[in-house]
């Protein structure tokens, strides 16, 4: 929880090489925030899932950080659809999905399904 994930989680796109570059760029952008120490990005068919961890003593300003991130992403990539979350559960699910996607036998369709599941988790309120 306190350590960053080792090796670095990185960014992965489900489709095309062009998207991978975008995902990596998004990751760099988020990493430039002072209060954030771990970022994982997955670019799906439509949405891009961005999960991050906030440094413990900066967690008081979590709402502001989320707002800043949303604004930055909106400004830099106006045509993309982002799902941003600082939730720990979303982060571990994202990491798990990233790990599984390294396996070539894990089909893109399944990955997309899994991604949608994580996004639906994020949207759950109660």
């Amino acid at each position, binding site marked *: *929880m306190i350590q960053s994930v080792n090796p670095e989680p990185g960014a992965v796109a489900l489709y095309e090489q062009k998207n991978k570059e975008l995902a990596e760029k998004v990751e760099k952008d988020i990493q430039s925030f002072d209060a954030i120490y771990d970022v994982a990005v997955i670019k799906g068919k439509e949405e891009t899932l961005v999960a991050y961890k906030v440094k413990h003593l900066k967690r008081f300003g979590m709402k502001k950080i989320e707002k800043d991130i949303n604004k930055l992403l909106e400004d830099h990539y106006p045509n993309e659809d982002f799902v941003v979350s600082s*939730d*720990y*559960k*979303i982060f*571990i699910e994202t990491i798990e999905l990233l790990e599984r996607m390294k396996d070539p036998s894990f089909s893109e369709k399944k990955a997309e399904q899994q991604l949608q599941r994580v996004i639906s*988790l*994020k949207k*759950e*309120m*109660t």
Partner: protein
Amino acid sequence: MGKKKNLTPVQQQYQQLEQKHEIKRPVWKNCLNAFWVGGLICAVGQAITYFYIYFFDFTEQTAGNPTVATMIFISMLLTGFGVYDHIGQFGGAGSAVPVTGFGNSVIAAAIEHRTEGFVLGVGGNMFKLAGSVILFGVFAAFIVALIKTLWTMMGVL
């Protein structure tokens, strides 16, 4: 304290004697015990939260509800077995302020009135202590929700 002047000399003498022999409450020690007992209970709660996050489909947002339910259930069991009484004796407010104190007060009242029968005894007296928690909790939540609704309508939030 306003009545002090009306005391007879004998009563004043007795008060002095009493003050000399009265055992002082170890306030600071009690505070320290309450602090770390309460902290320990919260650490257990945090562990349960992470348990739900890791092994079930709960997020940080949604893991709160099952955590509270589990903590209350555990403290109810401990009260029934008579363990929580000792924790309460030792930890004081540290064991009463977290939700575990709520479970304790419910079951303690239920056990106490068991001899009066199930309906009028247990049923009627179960929330004798915990009732005020529910009443004022719901009422406070209502007020806060009202204020938030008004603020949202006015566009402050």
